[in-house]
């Protein structure tokens, strides 16, 4: 069911309603089970996003910066440069690192929270005809999974073959759960339960792969 307050719940949660609107919505929430349930779902998503650990930038800028600081200064006439070279001052590098963290964290928040669309997209994308599931496109997650899978692959010889078989069977079980969730989401893309459930299944896979990687490293 949709009512006039339903699409204001996100603003409510973000504290963006006027005091009068807030009072009115509070009164509405006391009588509307659907809105109360949707609000609880939104809170759960926000809580999950808040619980995410900060991610360190995948590209560590410091070694390059330090190298340039330590290197003897070289003067290259501007017009004779054969190739364009981008360099950073230390403050710029720090700012770039911070920006990367903010963009990364913000991206995660938006993916999980459902942010507002911008009129100036950073990249060109095919026009969207519906609600895209949150977790379908998360390159950082995919990279982390790929890295850990590679670690497991590289370290297979460090583990007992039966242990590897058990790990892979359980990873397969999680993958099947993820696939079932994705298929359900394809048919029901706005389903909050499915979004949460998919996120949990993916976290479970990440946790198991991390555990496997730890076992390999302890080898």
């Amino acid at each position, binding site marked *: 069911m949709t009512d006039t307050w339903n699409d204001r719940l996100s603003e409510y949660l973000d504290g963006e309603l006027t005091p009068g609107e807030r009072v009115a919505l509070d009164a509405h929430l006391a009588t509307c089970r659907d809105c109360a349930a949707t609000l609880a779902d939104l809170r759960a998503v926000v809580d999950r996003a808040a619980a995410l650990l900060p991610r360190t930038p995948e590209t560590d800028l410091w070694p390059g910066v330090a190298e340039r600081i330590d290197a003897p200064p070289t003067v290259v006439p501007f017009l004779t440069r054969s190739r364009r070279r981008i360099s950073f001052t230390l403050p710029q590098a720090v700012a770039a690192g911070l920006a990367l963290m903010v963009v990364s964290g913000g991206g995660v928040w938006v993916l999980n929270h459902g942010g507002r669309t911008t009129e100036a997209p950073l990249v060109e994308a095919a026009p969207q005809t519906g609600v895209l599931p949150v977790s379908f496109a998360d390159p950082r997650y995919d990279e982390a999974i790929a890295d850990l899978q590679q670690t497991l692959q590289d370290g297979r010889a460090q583990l007992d073959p*039966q242990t590897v078989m*058990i790990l892979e069977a359980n990873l397969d079980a999680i993958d099947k759960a993820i696939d079932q969730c994705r298929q359900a989401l394809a048919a029901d893309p706005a*389903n909050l339960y499915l979004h949460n459930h998919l996120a949990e299944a993916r976290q479970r896979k990440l946790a198991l792969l991390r555990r496997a990687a730890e076992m390999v490293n302890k080898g």
Partner: protein
Amino acid sequence: MLTAGIALALTLAQAQPPSSPREAPKTDETVPVQRGARLTINNFAGEVVIHTWDKDQVHVLARHQPRTQVTIRNNGTVVLVSASGTHGPQGSVDYDITAPAWMPIRTEGTYNFVTVDGAQAEVFANTIRGDVIIKGGTGSVTAKSVEGEVDVDGARGKVNVNSVNEKIRVTNSSGEITAESVNGTITMTGMDAVSVDASSVNGTITYEGRIADSGHYSFETHNGDLLLGLPENLNATFTIRTYQGSFSTDLPLQGVGRNELQRGRRVTTTLGNGSAEISLETFGGRIRLRRGTAQPQRGKS
């Protein structure tokens, strides 16, 4: 080399039951300990059995091959028990250790079977291929295995149990319980927990026990069933969700019908004053709430 070592250790660990006396003890040592000290045992393969007593001493009895050397180091705050091979891999070691009941215990290994009985302090046990059995433990009790079963009885405090592929059983325990598996079942009976967070992909989760007022209980699976045996006079708010599973109960819960539970829709209902929170979620499993016991009768699931 490593593969050979693993194969050797496996052969040694599997060829004989852990409790069978393989040969005469090679290490028999007692060290005095001060209150506050911790006990750590690293054992690549074999068995670690820890009992407790009221003496401020740690007694280590270890059975192992002659080429294996057991080392007991006591720096005043940690008693570290480990083994190494004098020529090549260490092989398996079976420990029978007696420690003060107050002493926190930590044991890790690969092909390692662990039993801790009577601890009245923190217990941490982590193995890859082996069962973990803990009787007692207070404060923080952690039991993890990848391929083995996990069995915790009479623990109090923060209890964290995890088995990837085998079953988990927690009995007569209280406090805050966290249980996780992928394919293994999770069974909790005789519980007096104030919070439970149990999740599995395909394993069935069973809970029988008290529901504390203001407690938090969360049970979540993908395809596994959720079976709860609950007291009749409980005060709880149930939040129930399933995408394509089923729900049944003999508790007087209102508004939880097939129509309400369509495709992951959240259904909330209360018993009594609703003070405890019970969350039940499964993608495709069954949710069954019963008075008293979770199982309807013997032999039926």
